[in-house]
Protein backbone atom coordinates (compact mmCIF):
# COMPACT_ATOMS: atom_id res chain seq x y z
CA UNK A 1 0.00 0.00 0.00
CA UNK A 2 1.33 3.41 -0.91
CA UNK A 3 0.64 6.36 1.36
CA UNK A 4 2.26 9.23 -0.53
CA UNK A 5 2.60 9.40 -4.28
CA UNK A 6 3.85 12.28 -6.38
CA UNK A 7 3.50 12.36 -10.13
CA UNK A 8 5.71 14.71 -12.20
CA UNK A 9 5.68 17.20 -9.35
CA UNK A 10 6.92 20.69 -10.29
CA UNK A 11 7.14 23.66 -7.98
CA UNK A 12 8.23 27.18 -8.87
CA UNK A 13 8.92 30.04 -6.51
CA UNK A 14 8.07 33.48 -7.74
CA UNK A 15 10.75 36.06 -7.18
CA UNK A 16 9.50 39.54 -6.42
CA UNK A 17 11.24 42.87 -6.88
CA UNK A 18 10.93 45.74 -4.38
CA UNK A 19 7.56 46.83 -5.75
CA UNK A 20 6.01 43.40 -5.33
CA UNK A 21 6.08 42.61 -9.05
CA UNK A 22 6.96 39.13 -10.18
CA UNK A 23 10.28 39.42 -11.94
CA UNK A 24 11.45 35.87 -12.21
CA UNK A 25 10.61 32.30 -11.38
CA UNK A 26 12.88 29.86 -9.71
CA UNK A 27 12.23 26.18 -10.02
CA UNK A 28 12.53 24.35 -6.69
CA UNK A 29 11.22 20.98 -7.83
CA UNK A 30 11.15 19.56 -11.32
CA UNK A 31 9.47 16.34 -12.26
CA UNK A 32 9.61 14.52 -8.95
CA UNK A 33 8.11 11.04 -9.04
CA UNK A 34 8.13 9.44 -5.63
CA UNK A 35 6.11 6.73 -3.97
CA UNK A 36 6.26 6.15 -0.23
CA UNK A 37 4.91 2.82 1.00
CA UNK A 38 2.99 2.40 4.24
CA UNK A 39 5.27 1.63 7.17
CA UNK A 40 8.37 2.72 5.33
CA UNK A 41 11.27 4.62 6.91
CA UNK A 42 12.49 6.95 4.19
CA UNK A 43 15.37 9.38 4.56
CA UNK A 44 15.70 12.31 2.18
CA UNK A 45 19.22 13.64 1.65
CA UNK A 46 20.44 16.66 -0.25
CA UNK A 47 22.50 19.77 0.38
CA UNK A 48 20.90 23.16 1.11
CA UNK A 49 18.61 24.32 -1.67
CA UNK A 50 18.21 20.89 -3.22
CA UNK A 51 14.43 21.10 -2.76
CA UNK A 52 14.04 18.53 0.01
CA UNK A 53 12.11 20.81 2.38
CA UNK A 54 9.96 22.07 -0.48
CA UNK A 55 9.14 18.49 -1.37
CA UNK A 56 8.18 17.71 2.23
CA UNK A 57 5.78 20.64 2.37
CA UNK A 58 3.84 19.13 -0.52
CA UNK A 59 3.06 15.99 1.45
CA UNK A 60 0.32 17.64 3.51
CA UNK A 61 -0.77 20.49 1.33
CA UNK A 62 1.23 23.31 2.94
CA UNK A 63 2.51 23.99 -0.57
CA UNK A 64 0.51 23.05 -3.63
CA UNK A 65 2.22 21.86 -6.82
CA UNK A 66 2.71 24.29 -9.70
CA UNK A 67 2.36 21.31 -11.99
CA UNK A 68 1.83 17.60 -11.42
CA UNK A 69 -0.05 15.80 -8.67
CA UNK A 70 0.45 14.70 -5.08
CA UNK A 71 -1.74 12.02 -3.56
CA UNK A 72 -2.03 11.04 0.09
CA UNK A 73 -3.87 7.75 0.54
CA UNK A 74 -5.27 8.33 -2.92
CA UNK A 75 -6.61 11.80 -2.06
CA UNK A 76 -5.37 14.68 -4.19
CA UNK A 77 -3.80 17.26 -1.85
CA UNK A 78 -5.13 20.12 -3.96
CA UNK A 79 -8.62 19.02 -2.95
CA UNK A 80 -9.44 21.85 -0.56
CA UNK A 81 -12.42 20.14 0.98
CA UNK A 82 -10.37 17.23 2.33
CA UNK A 83 -7.28 19.15 3.41
CA UNK A 84 -7.82 18.50 7.15
CA UNK A 85 -8.19 14.80 6.49
CA UNK A 86 -4.83 14.93 4.71
CA UNK A 87 -3.12 16.93 7.43
CA UNK A 88 -4.40 14.47 9.99
CA UNK A 89 -2.97 11.58 7.98
CA UNK A 90 0.42 13.17 7.37
CA UNK A 91 1.78 15.06 10.37
CA UNK A 92 4.74 17.33 10.13
CA UNK A 93 7.56 18.25 12.52
CA UNK A 94 9.87 21.17 11.79
CA UNK A 95 13.44 22.03 12.53
CA UNK A 96 13.08 24.56 15.32
CA UNK A 97 11.05 23.14 18.23
CA UNK A 98 10.57 26.63 19.71
CA UNK A 99 8.71 27.87 16.67
CA UNK A 100 6.16 25.09 16.48
CA UNK A 101 5.01 24.91 20.09
CA UNK A 102 1.89 27.01 20.46
CA UNK A 103 0.87 26.80 24.10
CA UNK A 104 2.66 27.81 27.29
CA UNK A 105 2.14 24.40 28.92
CA UNK A 106 3.30 21.08 27.46
CA UNK A 107 0.01 19.20 27.67
CA UNK A 108 -1.90 22.16 26.22
CA UNK A 109 0.37 22.13 23.23
CA UNK A 110 0.05 18.40 22.67
CA UNK A 111 -3.72 18.91 22.76
CA UNK A 112 -3.67 21.74 20.22
CA UNK A 113 -4.32 19.65 17.10
CA UNK A 114 -7.11 17.70 18.76
CA UNK A 115 -8.76 20.90 19.96
CA UNK A 116 -8.67 22.14 16.38
CA UNK A 117 -10.28 18.96 15.15
CA UNK A 118 -13.11 19.31 17.65
CA UNK A 119 -12.39 16.12 19.61
CA UNK A 120 -14.40 15.90 22.87
CA UNK A 121 -12.39 16.89 26.03
CA UNK A 122 -12.37 13.40 27.60
CA UNK A 123 -11.00 11.83 24.46
CA UNK A 124 -8.41 14.62 24.12
CA UNK A 125 -7.17 13.84 27.63
CA UNK A 126 -6.88 10.15 26.82
CA UNK A 127 -5.10 10.66 23.51
CA UNK A 128 -2.61 13.27 24.73
CA UNK A 129 -1.68 11.15 27.76
CA UNK A 130 -1.05 8.25 25.43
CA UNK A 131 1.01 10.40 23.05
CA UNK A 132 3.07 11.95 25.84
CA UNK A 133 3.79 8.55 27.38
CA UNK A 134 4.81 7.17 24.00
CA UNK A 135 7.53 9.78 23.48
CA UNK A 136 8.42 9.76 27.17
CA UNK A 137 7.62 13.34 28.12
CA UNK A 138 4.65 12.59 30.37
CA UNK A 139 6.59 13.61 33.44
CA UNK A 140 6.85 17.15 32.07
CA UNK A 141 3.19 17.49 31.13
CA UNK A 142 2.63 20.53 33.37
CA UNK A 143 5.92 22.25 32.52
CA UNK A 144 6.45 25.37 30.46
CA UNK A 145 8.11 24.42 27.14
CA UNK A 146 10.88 26.99 27.45
CA UNK A 147 12.17 25.21 30.54
CA UNK A 148 12.78 21.97 28.63
CA UNK A 149 15.88 20.92 26.70
CA UNK A 150 15.97 20.95 22.90
CA UNK A 151 15.47 17.20 22.64
CA UNK A 152 12.55 17.30 25.05
CA UNK A 153 10.94 20.20 23.19
CA UNK A 154 11.25 18.39 19.89
CA UNK A 155 9.59 15.35 21.46
CA UNK A 156 6.77 17.61 22.66
CA UNK A 157 6.35 18.69 19.05
CA UNK A 158 6.33 15.05 17.96
CA UNK A 159 3.75 14.19 20.64
CA UNK A 160 1.56 17.01 19.36
CA UNK A 161 1.58 15.36 15.96
CA UNK A 162 1.15 11.81 17.25
CA UNK A 163 -1.94 12.83 19.21
CA UNK A 164 -3.67 13.22 15.83
CA UNK A 165 -2.89 9.51 15.24
CA UNK A 166 -1.35 10.12 11.83
CA UNK A 167 -0.32 7.29 9.53
CA UNK A 168 2.77 9.15 8.41
CA UNK A 169 5.07 11.71 10.00
CA UNK A 170 7.28 13.98 7.92
CA UNK A 171 10.20 15.38 9.90
CA UNK A 172 12.05 18.30 8.35
CA UNK A 173 15.56 18.23 9.84
CA UNK A 174 14.22 17.62 13.33
CA UNK A 175 17.67 17.25 14.87
CA UNK A 176 19.47 20.13 13.16
CA UNK A 177 19.22 22.45 16.16
CA UNK A 178 19.81 19.87 18.87
CA UNK A 179 22.87 18.84 20.84
CA UNK A 180 24.17 15.26 20.40
CA UNK A 181 22.14 14.00 23.37
CA UNK A 182 18.92 15.54 22.12
CA UNK A 183 19.64 14.18 18.64
CA UNK A 184 19.98 10.68 20.04
CA UNK A 185 16.71 10.98 21.99
CA UNK A 186 14.81 12.19 18.94
CA UNK A 187 16.27 9.51 16.64
CA UNK A 188 15.35 6.84 19.16
CA UNK A 189 11.79 8.18 19.26
CA UNK A 190 11.57 8.26 15.47
CA UNK A 191 12.75 4.65 15.16
CA UNK A 192 10.34 3.52 17.86
CA UNK A 193 7.43 5.19 16.03
CA UNK A 194 8.42 3.47 12.81
CA UNK A 195 8.42 0.12 14.62
CA UNK A 196 4.86 0.89 15.73
CA UNK A 197 3.89 1.02 12.06
CA UNK A 198 3.96 4.77 11.43
CA UNK A 199 5.47 5.75 8.09
CA UNK A 200 8.44 8.06 8.58
CA UNK A 201 9.85 10.53 6.09
CA UNK A 202 13.01 11.98 7.61
CA UNK A 203 14.69 14.91 5.94
CA UNK A 204 18.19 15.27 7.23
CA UNK A 205 21.72 16.13 6.38
CA UNK A 206 23.26 13.86 8.97
CA UNK A 207 24.47 10.80 7.08
CA UNK A 208 24.51 8.69 10.24
CA UNK A 209 20.77 9.31 10.64
CA UNK A 210 20.04 8.47 7.03
CA UNK A 211 21.93 5.21 7.52
CA UNK A 212 19.26 4.16 10.05
CA UNK A 213 16.50 4.39 7.44
CA UNK A 214 15.29 1.53 5.28
CA UNK A 215 15.35 3.59 2.12
CA UNK A 216 17.24 6.71 1.15
CA UNK A 217 16.64 9.16 -1.66
CA UNK A 218 19.13 11.83 -2.65
CA UNK A 219 17.95 15.11 -4.13
CA UNK A 220 19.85 17.63 -6.17
CA UNK A 221 18.57 20.74 -8.00
CA UNK A 222 14.95 19.78 -7.43
CA UNK A 223 15.08 16.20 -8.69
CA UNK A 224 15.64 12.81 -7.16
CA UNK A 225 19.01 11.56 -8.39
CA UNK A 226 19.45 8.43 -6.29
CA UNK A 227 16.99 6.03 -4.67
CA UNK A 228 17.82 2.84 -2.82
CA UNK A 229 18.75 1.21 0.46
CA UNK A 230 21.34 3.00 2.59
CA UNK A 231 23.94 0.39 1.62
CA UNK A 232 23.36 0.97 -2.08
CA UNK A 233 23.40 4.74 -1.74
CA UNK A 234 26.43 5.10 0.48
CA UNK A 235 28.55 2.71 -1.54
CA UNK A 236 28.54 5.33 -4.32
CA UNK A 237 30.87 7.66 -2.50
CA UNK A 238 32.02 9.61 -5.54
CA UNK A 239 28.53 10.34 -6.78
CA UNK A 240 27.48 11.63 -3.36
CA UNK A 241 30.52 13.85 -3.09
CA UNK A 242 29.77 15.32 -6.48
CA UNK A 243 26.41 16.67 -5.25
CA UNK A 244 28.03 18.14 -2.15
CA UNK A 245 27.18 15.42 0.35
CA UNK A 246 29.32 13.56 2.81
CA UNK A 247 29.16 9.86 3.56
CA UNK A 248 29.15 8.26 7.01
CA UNK A 249 32.64 8.04 8.53
CA UNK A 250 32.66 4.25 8.25
CA UNK A 251 31.86 4.35 4.56
CA UNK A 252 34.52 6.96 4.03
CA UNK A 253 37.10 4.78 5.75
CA UNK A 254 36.16 1.71 3.72
CA UNK A 255 36.21 3.79 0.55
CA UNK A 256 39.76 5.00 1.25
CA UNK A 257 40.92 1.49 2.16
CA UNK A 258 39.46 0.11 -1.06
CA UNK A 259 41.16 2.83 -3.03
CA UNK A 260 44.41 1.77 -1.40
CA UNK A 261 43.79 -1.71 -2.75
CA UNK A 262 42.35 -3.62 0.19
CA UNK A 263 39.70 -6.24 -0.50
CA UNK A 264 36.69 -4.92 1.41
CA UNK A 265 33.11 -4.88 0.21
CA UNK A 266 31.82 -1.41 -0.66
CA UNK A 267 28.49 -1.49 1.17
CA UNK A 268 29.65 -1.38 4.76
CA UNK A 269 27.58 1.01 6.83
CA UNK A 270 27.87 0.32 10.55
CA UNK A 271 30.84 0.66 12.86
CA UNK A 272 30.66 -2.89 14.25
CA UNK A 273 30.70 -4.65 10.91
CA UNK A 274 33.52 -2.42 9.73
CA UNK A 275 35.57 -3.17 12.84
CA UNK A 276 34.98 -6.91 12.39
CA UNK A 277 36.01 -6.89 8.73
CA UNK A 278 39.14 -4.89 9.41
CA UNK A 279 40.01 -7.18 12.29
CA UNK A 280 39.62 -10.17 9.96
CA UNK A 281 41.83 -8.45 7.40
CA UNK A 282 44.53 -7.74 9.96
CA UNK A 283 44.59 -11.18 11.55
CA UNK A 284 44.44 -12.63 8.02
CA UNK A 285 41.62 -15.05 8.62
Amino acid at each position, binding site marked *: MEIIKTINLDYEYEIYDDNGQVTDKSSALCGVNLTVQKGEFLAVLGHNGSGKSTLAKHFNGILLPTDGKVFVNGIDVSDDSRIYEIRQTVGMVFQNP*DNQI*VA*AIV*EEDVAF*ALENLGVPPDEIRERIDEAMKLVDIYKYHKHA*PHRLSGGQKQRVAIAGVIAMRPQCIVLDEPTAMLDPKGRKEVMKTIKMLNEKGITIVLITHYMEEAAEAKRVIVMDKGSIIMDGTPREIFSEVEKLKKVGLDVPQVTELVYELRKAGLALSADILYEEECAELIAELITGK
Partner: protein
Amino acid sequence: MLKDITIGQYFPGESIIHRLDARFKIIFSVLAAVMLFTAQNFMGLGIAAVFIIMCYAASGIKFKMILKSLKPIVPLIIFTGVLNLFFIKGEEVLFEWWFITIYTDGAKTSAFMIVRIMTLITGMSLLTYTSSPIMLTDAIESLLSPLKKIRFPVHELAMMMMIALRFIPLLIEETDKIMMAQKARGANLDAKGLIKKAKALIPILIPLFISAFKRANELAMAMECRCYKGGEGRTRLRKLKCSAIDFLALGLILCVYGMIIANNIAFG
Protein backbone atom coordinates in the same frame (compact mmCIF):
# COMPACT_ATOMS: atom_id res chain seq x y z
CA MET B 1 19.41 37.57 33.39
CA LEU B 2 16.09 38.60 31.87
CA LYS B 3 14.88 35.03 31.76
CA ASP B 4 13.01 34.87 35.01
CA ILE B 5 10.68 37.78 34.47
CA THR B 6 7.07 36.72 34.64
CA ILE B 7 3.96 38.73 34.11
CA GLY B 8 1.41 38.48 36.86
CA GLN B 9 3.14 35.99 39.08
CA TYR B 10 1.23 32.81 39.70
CA PHE B 11 1.64 30.60 42.76
CA PRO B 12 0.23 27.15 42.09
CA GLY B 13 -1.88 25.77 44.91
CA GLU B 14 -4.95 23.79 45.83
CA SER B 15 -6.78 26.23 48.10
CA ILE B 16 -10.44 27.18 47.76
CA ILE B 17 -9.44 30.44 46.11
CA HIS B 18 -7.29 28.56 43.60
CA ARG B 19 -10.13 26.23 42.80
CA LEU B 20 -12.63 28.98 42.08
CA ASP B 21 -13.62 29.30 38.46
CA ALA B 22 -11.32 31.91 36.87
CA ARG B 23 -14.33 33.59 35.25
CA PHE B 24 -15.89 34.13 38.66
CA LYS B 25 -12.59 35.37 40.00
CA ILE B 26 -12.41 38.04 37.32
CA ILE B 27 -15.96 39.12 38.11
CA PHE B 28 -15.13 39.11 41.83
CA SER B 29 -12.13 41.33 41.22
CA VAL B 30 -14.25 43.81 39.33
CA LEU B 31 -16.86 43.67 42.09
CA ALA B 32 -14.22 44.20 44.74
CA ALA B 33 -12.90 47.23 42.87
CA VAL B 34 -16.38 48.73 42.60
CA MET B 35 -16.93 47.89 46.25
CA LEU B 36 -13.85 49.86 47.28
CA PHE B 37 -15.10 52.89 45.42
CA THR B 38 -18.58 52.54 46.92
CA ALA B 39 -17.23 52.66 50.45
CA GLN B 40 -17.58 56.22 51.70
CA ASN B 41 -15.91 56.00 55.08
CA PHE B 42 -13.13 54.22 56.91
CA MET B 43 -15.48 51.66 58.35
CA GLY B 44 -16.62 50.57 54.86
CA LEU B 45 -13.05 50.44 53.66
CA GLY B 46 -12.11 48.47 56.76
CA ILE B 47 -14.80 45.87 56.02
CA ALA B 48 -13.50 45.48 52.47
CA ALA B 49 -9.88 45.29 53.64
CA VAL B 50 -10.66 42.65 56.25
CA PHE B 51 -12.53 40.67 53.61
CA ILE B 52 -9.58 40.79 51.19
CA ILE B 53 -7.14 39.81 53.93
CA MET B 54 -9.39 36.88 54.78
CA CYS B 55 -9.25 35.86 51.12
CA TYR B 56 -5.45 35.93 51.31
CA ALA B 57 -5.56 33.77 54.41
CA ALA B 58 -7.85 31.30 52.63
CA SER B 59 -5.62 31.18 49.55
CA GLY B 60 -2.49 30.27 51.48
CA ILE B 61 -0.55 33.06 49.78
CA LYS B 62 2.01 34.45 52.20
CA PHE B 63 1.16 37.87 53.63
CA LYS B 64 4.54 39.23 52.62
CA MET B 65 3.34 38.85 49.03
CA ILE B 66 0.93 41.70 49.80
CA LEU B 67 3.89 43.95 50.44
CA LYS B 68 5.56 42.68 47.27
CA SER B 69 2.49 43.48 45.19
CA LEU B 70 2.43 47.00 46.64
CA LYS B 71 6.06 47.72 45.88
CA PRO B 72 5.66 48.86 42.25
CA ILE B 73 2.94 51.36 43.15
CA VAL B 74 4.78 53.07 46.02
CA PRO B 75 5.38 56.20 43.88
CA LEU B 76 1.70 56.33 43.04
CA ILE B 77 0.74 55.98 46.70
CA ILE B 78 3.12 58.76 47.73
CA PHE B 79 1.93 60.98 44.90
CA THR B 80 -1.76 60.54 45.77
CA GLY B 81 -1.07 60.97 49.44
CA VAL B 82 0.93 64.16 49.07
CA LEU B 83 -1.49 65.64 46.55
CA ASN B 84 -4.50 65.09 48.79
CA LEU B 85 -2.67 66.17 51.87
CA PHE B 86 -1.68 69.59 50.56
CA PHE B 87 -4.43 70.52 48.18
CA ILE B 88 -7.63 69.70 49.98
CA LYS B 89 -8.86 72.63 51.94
CA GLY B 90 -11.10 72.42 54.97
CA GLU B 91 -12.04 74.49 57.97
CA GLU B 92 -9.97 72.97 60.70
CA VAL B 93 -6.26 73.63 60.37
CA LEU B 94 -4.17 70.75 61.56
CA PHE B 95 -0.71 72.07 60.91
CA GLU B 96 0.70 75.30 59.64
CA TRP B 97 4.27 76.22 58.79
CA TRP B 98 5.54 78.88 56.41
CA PHE B 99 3.45 78.43 53.24
CA ILE B 100 2.27 74.91 54.06
CA THR B 101 -1.14 74.52 55.54
CA ILE B 102 -2.60 71.11 56.21
CA TYR B 103 -6.24 70.74 57.04
CA THR B 104 -7.80 67.86 58.93
CA ASP B 105 -9.98 67.05 55.93
CA GLY B 106 -6.91 66.86 53.73
CA ALA B 107 -5.16 64.46 56.09
CA LYS B 108 -8.28 62.31 56.30
CA THR B 109 -8.82 62.16 52.54
CA SER B 110 -5.18 61.47 52.01
CA ALA B 111 -5.17 58.52 54.39
CA PHE B 112 -8.45 57.29 52.90
CA MET B 113 -7.10 57.37 49.36
CA ILE B 114 -3.89 55.59 50.35
CA VAL B 115 -5.77 52.79 52.06
CA ARG B 116 -8.15 52.53 49.11
CA ILE B 117 -5.39 52.20 46.51
CA MET B 118 -3.48 49.73 48.63
CA THR B 119 -6.52 47.54 49.17
CA LEU B 120 -7.41 47.75 45.49
CA ILE B 121 -3.98 46.56 44.33
CA THR B 122 -3.82 43.88 47.00
CA GLY B 123 -7.19 42.55 45.89
CA MET B 124 -6.28 42.59 42.20
CA SER B 125 -2.98 40.83 42.85
CA LEU B 126 -4.80 37.96 44.47
CA LEU B 127 -6.39 37.25 41.08
CA THR B 128 -3.05 36.79 39.32
CA TYR B 129 -1.48 35.06 42.32
CA THR B 130 -4.08 32.32 42.31
CA SER B 131 -4.90 31.83 38.62
CA SER B 132 -2.46 30.77 35.91
CA PRO B 133 -2.17 32.98 32.81
CA ILE B 134 -3.78 30.22 30.77
CA MET B 135 -6.75 30.02 33.11
CA LEU B 136 -7.14 33.78 32.82
CA THR B 137 -6.94 33.66 29.03
CA ASP B 138 -9.61 30.97 28.94
CA ALA B 139 -11.76 32.94 31.35
CA ILE B 140 -11.47 36.12 29.31
CA GLU B 141 -12.40 34.21 26.15
CA SER B 142 -15.40 32.74 27.89
CA LEU B 143 -16.50 36.03 29.45
CA LEU B 144 -16.19 37.89 26.17
CA SER B 145 -17.91 35.19 24.11
CA PRO B 146 -21.25 37.05 23.99
CA LEU B 147 -19.40 39.68 21.94
CA LYS B 148 -19.03 37.11 19.14
CA LYS B 149 -22.56 38.06 18.15
CA ILE B 150 -21.36 41.50 17.13
CA ARG B 151 -18.43 39.91 15.27
CA PHE B 152 -15.83 40.80 17.88
CA PRO B 153 -12.88 38.42 17.27
CA VAL B 154 -12.95 36.81 20.72
CA HIS B 155 -11.23 33.58 19.78
CA GLU B 156 -8.50 35.37 17.85
CA LEU B 157 -7.87 37.64 20.81
CA ALA B 158 -7.55 34.69 23.18
CA MET B 159 -5.27 32.85 20.74
CA MET B 160 -3.07 35.92 20.47
CA MET B 161 -2.83 36.13 24.24
CA MET B 162 -1.93 32.46 24.46
CA ILE B 163 0.80 32.78 21.83
CA ALA B 164 2.10 35.95 23.45
CA LEU B 165 2.37 34.13 26.78
CA ARG B 166 4.27 31.35 25.08
CA PHE B 167 6.68 33.61 23.21
CA ILE B 168 7.46 36.26 25.82
CA PRO B 169 10.12 34.19 27.61
CA LEU B 170 11.55 33.17 24.25
CA LEU B 171 11.81 36.71 22.97
CA ILE B 172 13.30 37.90 26.25
CA GLU B 173 15.96 35.22 25.94
CA GLU B 174 16.59 36.30 22.38
CA THR B 175 16.90 39.97 23.38
CA ASP B 176 19.53 38.87 25.85
CA LYS B 177 21.46 37.05 23.14
CA ILE B 178 21.23 39.95 20.69
CA MET B 179 22.39 42.38 23.36
CA MET B 180 25.42 40.24 24.06
CA ALA B 181 26.18 39.81 20.38
CA GLN B 182 25.95 43.55 19.75
CA LYS B 183 28.08 44.29 22.80
CA ALA B 184 30.67 41.85 21.51
CA ARG B 185 30.81 43.91 18.33
CA GLY B 186 31.34 47.09 20.27
CA ALA B 187 27.82 48.51 20.45
CA ASN B 188 27.49 51.01 23.28
CA LEU B 189 24.26 49.99 24.96
CA ASP B 190 24.84 51.87 28.19
CA ALA B 191 24.88 55.29 26.54
CA LYS B 192 23.80 58.27 28.59
CA GLY B 193 21.08 60.64 27.47
CA LEU B 194 17.62 59.95 26.13
CA ILE B 195 18.36 60.27 22.41
CA LYS B 196 21.54 58.23 22.64
CA LYS B 197 19.72 55.58 24.63
CA ALA B 198 16.98 55.38 22.01
CA LYS B 199 19.57 55.10 19.29
CA ALA B 200 21.33 52.33 21.18
CA LEU B 201 18.09 50.34 21.06
CA ILE B 202 17.96 50.22 17.27
CA PRO B 203 20.63 47.54 16.82
CA ILE B 204 18.70 45.40 19.31
CA LEU B 205 15.18 45.99 18.09
CA ILE B 206 15.77 45.41 14.39
CA PRO B 207 17.24 41.90 14.68
CA LEU B 208 14.62 41.11 17.31
CA PHE B 209 11.79 42.09 14.99
CA ILE B 210 13.24 40.18 12.06
CA SER B 211 13.57 37.07 14.15
CA ALA B 212 10.07 37.50 15.60
CA PHE B 213 8.59 37.69 12.09
CA LYS B 214 10.50 34.57 11.06
CA ARG B 215 9.23 32.75 14.11
CA ALA B 216 5.67 33.92 13.42
CA ASN B 217 5.93 32.61 9.88
CA GLU B 218 7.11 29.18 11.01
CA LEU B 219 4.57 29.03 13.82
CA ALA B 220 1.76 29.78 11.39
CA MET B 221 2.92 26.90 9.20
CA ALA B 222 3.17 24.53 12.17
CA MET B 223 -0.33 25.55 13.26
CA GLU B 224 -1.69 24.87 9.80
CA CYS B 225 -0.03 21.47 9.86
CA ARG B 226 -1.96 20.75 13.01
CA CYS B 227 -5.26 21.57 11.34
CA TYR B 228 -5.76 25.03 12.84
CA LYS B 229 -8.76 26.64 11.19
CA GLY B 230 -9.86 29.34 13.61
CA GLY B 231 -12.29 29.19 16.50
CA GLU B 232 -15.10 27.46 14.62
CA GLY B 233 -15.82 23.97 15.93
CA ARG B 234 -12.91 24.01 18.33
CA THR B 235 -13.05 22.08 21.60
CA ARG B 236 -10.90 22.66 24.65
CA LEU B 237 -8.86 20.27 26.74
CA ARG B 238 -9.79 22.04 29.95
CA LYS B 239 -13.37 23.00 30.43
CA LEU B 240 -14.09 25.87 32.76
CA LYS B 241 -16.50 24.52 35.34
CA CYS B 242 -18.39 26.54 37.87
CA SER B 243 -19.49 24.76 40.99
CA ALA B 244 -21.46 25.49 44.15
CA ILE B 245 -18.39 27.09 45.76
CA ASP B 246 -18.36 29.78 43.09
CA PHE B 247 -21.93 30.77 43.80
CA LEU B 248 -21.27 30.60 47.52
CA ALA B 249 -18.35 32.99 47.05
CA LEU B 250 -20.55 35.25 44.96
CA GLY B 251 -23.10 35.25 47.79
CA LEU B 252 -20.38 36.10 50.29
CA ILE B 253 -19.13 39.00 48.20
CA LEU B 254 -22.65 40.35 47.81
CA CYS B 255 -23.06 40.12 51.60
CA VAL B 256 -19.92 42.20 52.12
CA TYR B 257 -21.22 44.57 49.49
CA GLY B 258 -24.50 44.88 51.36
CA MET B 259 -22.64 45.60 54.58
CA ILE B 260 -20.70 48.39 52.94
CA ILE B 261 -23.80 49.98 51.45
CA ALA B 262 -25.62 49.69 54.79
CA ASN B 263 -22.63 51.31 56.42
CA ASN B 264 -22.74 54.13 53.89
CA ILE B 265 -26.39 54.79 54.60
CA ALA B 266 -25.98 54.60 58.35
CA PHE B 267 -22.88 56.73 58.74
CA GLY B 268 -22.87 58.76 55.51
